[in-house]
């Protein structure tokens, strides 16, 4: 009987059960087995089929008691849960957004209408073209607007957006990793 208990103890050690807990379980089991033997009850009668498989018995007991995590079958990680893939996707998105911003800005600049018509000159930033003369009251003021949209702020915006996306992705990945189940004690 002591051999059975020793094999259980070895299995608990292998599974990572703490020594005090393994000692407690082993002591309880040994006491029960000794008392059963004194009563003429065999290990098989007390433990049934598990009497022939101490490792399985020990693992089942420890698992049911919650001192080791239950065995988990390895599950394939989904595409978006791989950190390397996530990083690559984030960088790709950033690059694409940067190009979109750059070429979008160029297109906007080229497609802008060369002239704008105003009824009254209200905006102080309007600049009359040389030789246009003074506008007559009631007549539209025709000016040439220089639509020089500056691309730098837009690129900076998308740069910040990309960095934020990467940071959020990294934090999310780190959080997912830290959620690995731990064995209750």
């Amino acid at each position: 009987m002591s051999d059975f208990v020793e094999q259980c103890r070895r299995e608990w050690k292998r599974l990572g059960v703490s020594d005090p807990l393994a000692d407690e379980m082993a002591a309880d089991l040994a006491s029960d087995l000794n008392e059963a033997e004194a009563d003429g009850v065999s290990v098989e009668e007390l433990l049934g089929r598990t009497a022939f498989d101490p490792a399985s018995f020990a693992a089942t007991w420890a698992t049911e008691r919650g001192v080791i995590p239950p065995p988990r079958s390895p599950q394939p990680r989904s595409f978006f849960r791989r950190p390397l893939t996530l990083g690559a996707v984030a960088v790709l998105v950033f690059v694409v957004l940067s190009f979109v911003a750059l070429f979008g800005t160029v297109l906007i600049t080229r497609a802008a209408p060369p002239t704008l018509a105003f009824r009254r000159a209200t905006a102080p930033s309007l600049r009359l073209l040389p030789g246009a003369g003074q506008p007559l009251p009631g007549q539209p003021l025709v000016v040439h607007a220089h639509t020089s949209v500056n691309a730098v702020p837009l690129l900076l915006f998308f740069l910040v957006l990309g960095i934020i996306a990467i940071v959020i992705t990294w934090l999310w990945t780190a959080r997912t990793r830290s959620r690995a189940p731990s064995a209750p004690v």
Partner: protein
Amino acid sequence: MLDLCLLAVIDEEPAYGYEMTKRLRERGLAFVGEGSIYPLLGRLERDGLVDTRRAASNGGPPRKYYQPSGAGRLALALGVSEWRAARDAVDAVLAPVTVEVAT
């Protein structure tokens, strides 16, 4: 079902593992050994359905005594109620049955 039986016998009086087995055997539940009570006791303890204390046994080493916690007694009451309802339903079907078998 065995966990319900374990809760029932330790509700009468706290007991350690082998003592529970003996009480169940005395009432005709000799199949206990087939599944072993230890994993069941572990699960009951993990789920907070039993309270434990270590105390000296009669002339032997200190043993771990189990008794139902408040949640355990509630689970026992619900389980017994469900068992009785199921038993009555099965009885209603099987009680009128009379089968004559030619030998």
